[in-house]
């Protein structure tokens, strides 16, 4: 199978996965107790007015009709071309377009995810290599211990500790939010503050948004680095025992060349897969991180919408998460197939 056929197959396999996910979320939300209609009436709920609201929200229709309305909206090409995002319905609380809400919240989560992944990779992979090279030594045990601790520590706990140290005591970094309150956020181009401020050429905003990113991305990155350390170490240990490494050493190649140029490249495939898979976990972890750091992303959006039984908003956010994870998995699969042709066979 050629690379193109492989990619097309993977794309088509993503569609039923998303549909299954969407159906499950749709049903689970409606099985849960709690009525989004009554939540509109904080104090005095008149039965007639509640019935009007039920009609307004489309909840007086049979379940199957609501489901098909939703699916039909999702594949509405005209809507997509007019708005730039799929029709995910209207929020049951605010009646705003869920697509607009989700796409406005997503860049904050994406920015956090990207920087966290950079920190996790920059920390986890080199430490994993060092641990494997000094197998069973004190250094190896120290690094493994570090990996275990960072992976085991809860996100909110690590977050609060970092906030206390760097925010409250040292006053070096802000304790939350995406940018210093006294700085106006950069105009939206990509939605990523650091990128937008650079594109705008405003280094003050870049500096402030980067400062705000440090603690949340460090929190999430540190926790993910634990997985990377263990995974890199295990794979490197296996690879360093292989014949081609011995042969390379026998030919007098420098140790660093053998380790990073040959062994790590071979051990990197499973790590690459794990990076892709960890993006899903990273988005899940982002829910807690976003709450700890008052980060206005998709994770915090989901938590708030769940409290309001905002069915359409939660569906929209889950679809967005699903799409993102599917996209990352697809990219990893393609990279994997590109690097290792056996996969396409």
């Amino acid at each position, binding site marked *: 199978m050629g690379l193109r056929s492989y990619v097309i197959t993977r794309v088509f396999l993503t569609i039923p996965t998303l549909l299954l996910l969407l159906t499950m979320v749709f049903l689970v939300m409606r099985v849960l*107790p*709690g*009525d*989004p209609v*009554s*939540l*509109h*009436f*904080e*104090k*005095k*709920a*008149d039965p007639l*007015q509640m019935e*009007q*609201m039920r009609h307004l929200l489309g909840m007086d229709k049979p379940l199957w009709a609501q489901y098909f309305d939703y699916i039909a909206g999702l594949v509405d090409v005209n809507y997509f071309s007019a708005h730039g995002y799929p029709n995910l319905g209207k*929020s049951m*609380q*605010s*009646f*705003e377009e869920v697509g*607009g*809400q*989700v796409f*406005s*919240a997503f860049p*904050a989560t994406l920015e956090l995810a990207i920087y966290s992944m950079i920190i996790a990779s920059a920390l986890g992979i080199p430490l994993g290599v060092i641990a494997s090279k000094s197998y069973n030594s004190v250094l190896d045990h120290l690094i493994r211990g570090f990996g275990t601790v960072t992976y085991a520590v809860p996100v909110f706990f690590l977050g*609060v500790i970092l*906030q*206390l140290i760097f*925010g*409250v005591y040292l*006053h070096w970094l*802000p*304790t*939350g*939010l*995406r940018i210093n*309150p*006294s700085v*106006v*956020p950069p105009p939206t181009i990509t939605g990523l503050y650091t990128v937008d401020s650079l594109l705008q050429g405003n280094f003050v905003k870049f500096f402030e948004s980067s400062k705000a990113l440090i603690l949340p991305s460090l929190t999430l990155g540190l926790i993910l680095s634990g997985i990377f350390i263990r995974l890199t170490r295990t794979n490197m240990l296996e690879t360093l025992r292989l014949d081609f490494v011995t042969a390379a050493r026998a030919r007098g190649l420098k140790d660093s060349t053998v380790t990073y140029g040959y062994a790590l490249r071979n051990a990197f495939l499973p790590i690459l897969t794990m990076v892709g898979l960890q993006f899903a976990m990273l988005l899940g972890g982002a829910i807690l991180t*976003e*709450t*700890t*750091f*008052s980060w*206005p992303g*998709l994770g*915090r*959006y989901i938590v*708030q*919408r769940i*409290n*309001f*039984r905002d069915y359409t*908003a939660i569906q929209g956010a889950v679809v967005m998460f699903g799409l993102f994870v599917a996209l990352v998995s697809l990219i990893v699969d393609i990279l994997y197939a590109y690097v290792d042709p056996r996969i396409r066979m």
Partner: protein
Amino acid sequence: MWNKVELSIVVLVLIGIIVSSGTMIYTFNTMSNLSTLTDDVSALTENVGNLTSSVRDLATITALLAQSMGQLNQTLADLQARLASIEASLAAQAKETIIVGTTDSVELTLDPAQAYDYFGWCIMQQISATLISVAPNSSTGADFEPNLAQSWNVSSDLLTWDFTLRQGVTFPDGTVFNATHVKYSFDRAIDLIPNIPEGAPAGLEYNKIINRTDVLSTYKVRFVLNFPFSAFLGVLSCRASAIVDPTYAPLMTQVNYTAGNARGSTPLAFVGPYYLSTWTRVGSSDIEIRLDANPHYWNATSGYPKTKHIIFRFYSDSSTLRLAIEAGDIDMAFRHISPTDALDLDQSATVNVWWGTGAFVQYLCFQEKRAPFNDTRVRVAVAAALNRSSMCETVFLGLSSPLYSIIPPGMLGHTEAFKKLGDANYTYTRSLLAQLGYNESNKLAFDLWYESSGHYPSSADQALLYKEALEDSGVISVTLKSANWANYKSNRDSEIMDAYVYGWYPDYVDPDDYAFLYWAAWLHTNYSNATQTTLYDQARATANQTLRTQLYAQIDGMAVEQCSVVPLYVSGAWAVTKPTINGIYLDITQDMRYWLIYITD
């Protein structure tokens, strides 16, 4: 002999030659040295000349250097002056801006036809205005002062209310505020009720209260009511009665948030101390709200608002809000710092904690359509066994107060009626329950429900304390059950909860907005009492404060006998600020008047 002479001559000649040669060599050398010396002397002279010249140059350079140093000093001084000026400008700017941290967020809109949440109303209060307001530091909530109306009259039957409007109030576009704007605002609010049944005007029943609004003249407006309503001033002072700008307020359409267009995101007339300059939301939650001083504000000449810019920043929970105020990221934290954190921060020298009264109450409801609470004696017995003081001290660390009337202290009509039953009055509880056959071996058993998703403060802790107090009677067994807010409301409507704790934030500060809770149909307690309703209507229909007080006292008295709803506690209020922040008023209205807040050195 000759030979000797000749030899002597030769020797002498040779000696002469040698001496001459030596002399010549010496002379030559000397001459050469002299020449060198001369050269050296001339070189020296030249060098001395050069040196003199250099010294002269040096002197010039020194002079120039001194001049440059002077200029450099001047430049440095200028630079320092500029830095000082920038610092002063920044300090001045900082003194003109207050950054407020909160866990609140505008729930839906800033349209008075819909908004029905604390924070939405708070922002509306800063950017728009009502005809009248409650004066800061009011302890009763009935100290009304002029706002857009300068004076008012009410007919003796409480059906006709005339207001004389303030003149010289302008919208930012120069439009002069007049009576037509008042009529437009109220007509719109009432017309939109069918479209927005969940909005504040619908909840406050504007359509049932107000018959019509008449423009009497440019600056005179009249409200004709459908029934005598003594609390009408309270309704007019709440944010659902804020004035809208017809340019931005379509008559039959509500106005929603529009990204990047703060002005177009609210129909309110910008006649308040501030105008809304930035409003950023992501996924139905606020990210940033910025208020800037309104240069057209009618009271600007008196120096209001005292702080030119207010920036709101939104935190996800009380602990992150506390960290932000401690770290100095924000100047002020208001709603919601937890009671524990507030007391802890009160010991800190880096922040000030401001304490005030509250108007939020919680109460216990009983489901009366079935046993055991269809029997009044059971309800009274349970009410007598409650220990409010212990709960307030343990859960709220004394920052909330036990409540013995559904009307909070300070307000007209407040009584201590439920004190008649006492706190932890187990003797009375046992005696009442004994009449129904309940005792230590046959305990009264029921489910006590509480809300578990943070809609009310410390609900689980409260419930635990209520359970302990009730079970300490020895004749009651309580099973605690919880549900998140969505389920809790569903359970309330489906009437499946035996006993449940509920709460009330007032719409306007008047006993009229509290007393009806004893029989409110939407609480689904299935309790009704025609006498109490009649007393309530009588209290509505009289302006006689003494009579109103007596009527509410009668309602309270009957409530104690019936115990359909049992008052539990009234909340306190607090704000945390940097020590340089002043002008905070935390009174019974729960309003934060940001235009009164200022920064000191």
